[in-house]
């Protein structure tokens, strides 16, 4: 349930579901997200579900904080019917050309490169949310001994396809973009396709993902097959 509602600026509601990150809280967020999205309240536009927060943006020309808050407080969030989750295998190349932060990770985690890769690859991940850049999946959870903080100053350009870690999460940069996550490898797969307007994301909240290591040659040939 929503623990607290406050304002984020003058054109968004900040719905707080708690501080923990787990599937149970995340599914509450998704439940509210889907219910509000279907109801199409006049003035509400963007909705951003994340691990344990839901941000509801609205058009300040049409409504305001008080009205939207009142609406959300009285909503009866329904369990969503369409749990259509997939299991996906994502190829990743961890050659030194791509693993830009492996040294930093070795230092922070006090683990060898081999051990970091072994831990990372022998794991099934759950997609909590998508966003930051179009289609980027936020995958969890990494084991306790694999958790590192973001870079102090985010990079201005992270290469497209980068597979990166922060805290208990992994993600994939679907485009070249600024970003502060620790880069471990790169996937040749297109995780976002804007030509599919109704389903542009390969990975969606609720899906499970495993990473499969490929060599540099396999990476280079991947899109030619």
């Amino acid at each position: 349930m929503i623990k607290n509602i406050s304002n984020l600026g003058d054109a968004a509601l900040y719905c707080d579901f708690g501080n923990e990150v787990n599937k149970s809280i995340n599914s509450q967020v998704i439940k509210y997200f889907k219910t509000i999205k279907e109801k199409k309240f006049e003035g509400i536009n963007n909705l951003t579900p994340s691990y344990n927060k839901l941000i509801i943006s609205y058009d300040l020309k049409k409504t305001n904080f008080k009205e939207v808050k009142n609406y959300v407080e009285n909503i009866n969030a329904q369990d969503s019917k369409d749990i259509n989750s997939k299991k996906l295998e994502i190829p990743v190349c961890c050659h030194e050309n791509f693993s830009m932060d492996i040294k930093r990770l070795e230092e922070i985690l006090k683990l060898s490169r081999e051990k970091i890769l072994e831990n990372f690859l022998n794991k099934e991940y759950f997609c909590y949310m998508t966003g930051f850049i179009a289609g980027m999946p936020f995958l969890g959870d990494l084991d306790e001994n694999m958790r590192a903080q973001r870079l102090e100053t985010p990079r201005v350009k992270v290469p497209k396809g980068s597979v990166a870690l922060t805290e208990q999460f992994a993600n994939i940069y679907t485009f070249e973009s600024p970003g502060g996550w620790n880069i471990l490898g790169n996937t040749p797969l297109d995780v976002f396709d804007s030509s599919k307007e109704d389903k542009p994301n390969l990975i969606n909240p609720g899906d499970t993902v495993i990473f499969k290591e490929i060599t540099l040659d396999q990476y280079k040939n991947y899109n030619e097959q």
Partner: protein
Amino acid sequence: MSNNYLDIIRPGINTTFQDKGRDHLYHIGIPFSGAMDNRNYLIANKLVNNNLDSAVIEFAYQGPHIKYSGEKVNCAITGDVIFSIKKKDTEIEGKCYESYQIENGDEINIISTNKSVYGYLALGVEFDLKFQWNSCSINTKANIGSNDGKKLDAGQRINLKKINSNKDIKKTNYINTKIENIRVIKGTNFDYFSEEGKKIFYEKEFIVSKLSDRMGMRLEGPKIDNIVNTNIKSEGLIKGVIQVPADGNPIIMLSDHGTIGGYPKIGVVASVDYDRLVQMSPGSKIKFKEINLSDAETLFKLYEMETQNLISQI
């Protein structure tokens, strides 16, 4: 096939098609996009008798040099922009907020914006553009929108589908007011910062860095010290959010921003000041002033009324 078209002789630094943007796709990671300075976008369309949500050409700093071919059409430029219109025998110095009629062979040369960032070129036409999610706005990071999601390039041709029958010449007197104080509402992680850090945020000057674009505006100045945690669990962002990463330098989210972020939010720019914020060029001084939610709502209402007035008078 079209008999009316534009040829891009010089594209400028960051020239894109923009309209009202996309307002319902944050959950898959697609930001608003759309014209950065909404008021100047609307005025530009009104000056050439367009629907207010029509596509315009947005440019930053140096603008495009364009050659027009086809039947007579109106054009107008808004913002604070230096440009000229070259006709057969003459070259006239252009004035913003006035429409001009151009004809076959005429050229529009947009030299640069003046102490500001964005300018808008509207034509009284319907451009032949691809729409994605009901908008032609170009998002160059995700390659979404018209022109394959890329900036306009030299040598390319843009076809026009339709030319407005209303060719009335319009003019308005509008002056872009510059502001140094940007009004902000306290962010959801305001208490992550030290007392000294909070004081710095509201009392000291920051400088707009060169590393600013349609995604975000980076600021430089005294460091804002975080005493709780320099990371938060990633969560949604909106236009105008001011995040402070571990290095203590604030970053303001702009129209092409990432939809999710993990740095603490010290504040959010009030909607009333967004159009003027985006026009602050690198090197500009910026100071934040706190306001509460109800004042922010009232000020936006007044700003919006003023915009509607300006448009209705054109």
